[in-house]
């Protein structure tokens, strides 16, 4: 049975942490279509969290088409898992490792690396939004 965990110091709301874990596990192949997720009560007792948080996470997963409730049986994974193809994953990982090495040589510590990635992501998001806007204008 799949087990959730909770990182109290991450700053990410608990319900989103649960959603992320299912998404990631699907991506990595740890969860597959037909797998049953633990009951709301089990997750609430296991992680000592509000059951409404678990309900909210499961609803979000249903909304995203990743899971579905079967009356009286529980919540099941409904998505055909679409893991990142191994070749693509390997390529991306290799280029990321090369980049991380370069960052270390340039004297960036862990925090600086995280900050730089966050900033780059933010810029990329804005670029994409900008592109979309321009497309709409055209």
């Amino acid at each position: 049975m799949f087990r959730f965990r909770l990182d109290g110091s991450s700053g990410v709301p608990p319900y989103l942490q649960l959603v992320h874990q299912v998404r990631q596990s699907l991506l990595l192949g740890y969860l597959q279509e037909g797998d049953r997720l633990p009951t709301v009560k089990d997750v609430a007792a296991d992680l000592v969290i509000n059951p409404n948080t678990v309900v909210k996470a499961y609803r979000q997963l249903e909304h995203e088409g990743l899971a579905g409730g079967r009356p009286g049986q529980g919540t099941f994974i409904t998505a055909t898992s679409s893991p990142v193809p191994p070749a693509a994953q390997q390529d991306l990982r290799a280029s990321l490792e090369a980049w991380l090495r370069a960052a270390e040589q340039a004297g960036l510590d862990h925090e600086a690396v995280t900050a730089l990635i966050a900033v780059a992501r933010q810029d990329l998001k804005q670029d994409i939004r900008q592109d979309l806007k321009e497309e709409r204008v055209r």
Partner: protein
Amino acid sequence: MNQHDADGSVPALRTDRLGRRYGKVWGLRDCTLEVPAGAVAALVGPNGAGKTTLLEMIIGLLEPTEGQVSVFGETSRAGTAETLARVGYVAQDHPLYRDFTVADMFHLGRAMNPRWDQKLAAARVEALGIPLKRKVKGLSGGQQAQVSLTMALAKRAPLLVLDEPVSSLDPVARLEFMRDVMATAADHALTFLISSHVVSELERFCDWLIILSGGHVQLAGPADDLLDAHRLLTVPRATPDADLPGRTIHRTDSDRHSAVLVRAEAGQLAVQGHAGWQADPVSFEQLVMAYLQRTSTAATTGNPAPAAEGPGPNTKAVSR
């Protein structure tokens, strides 16, 4: 009297301009709030904020000076058996008779509560491994808390009020007690109102947040929505509050930057186009602490409050 929500459901708890005066001093004033059925609501506030006054009026132990409390649409009348039976209460120090056995406590509960569920009470303590014949003084702090919660549950009250239920427990007993509360919340259609000082732990337990300070409600609503409506801005130090999006809740100025926690509607928080500005989501603890650190008066009414003494020399709390 029935009071319905916009969506037609009756809130588990509603207070309407509730106030209580002790002599010339108001312990709580103009307190209007709602907790929907099924919520686990956290009540936080510094000592002297009016939490106990509010809780005692909710459970029917204290008569309001003004305003009223309704529980599931029924207006409460302090001191009446009917009102007292509708709210389960776990007090901070888990008051139980030390020389009574657990079974004796249950007899007492049955005598005092018309809807007492003896089966539920017995099954719970058995599941928790607490012997019915054990005297209260022979139980651990955690077990006493469990018996106290069991007494409140066996009343079959739809609303449970827990006043600092874990403050006297060690970390392990605390975790086990809250594990039990969370499992119980999952099993029964119950609404919880829990007051606590342990802000760091609350995020996992509650989906509804009420911040009380200086006898007034500072912030109340669904925890996730409240988090969404706040951002931590990092801006150049010289930036005045008036130039920032939204309303400044708390500001910390360092040499070059200011960290400002603001409240703003979605879409109002755009910081693009401002070089050197950054907007980050706030954590639950940051949100609560920001409100607790600002001055007590009138966040909800919008009256200007004098700058408060913050925890550090460069910290000030502002309200406008």
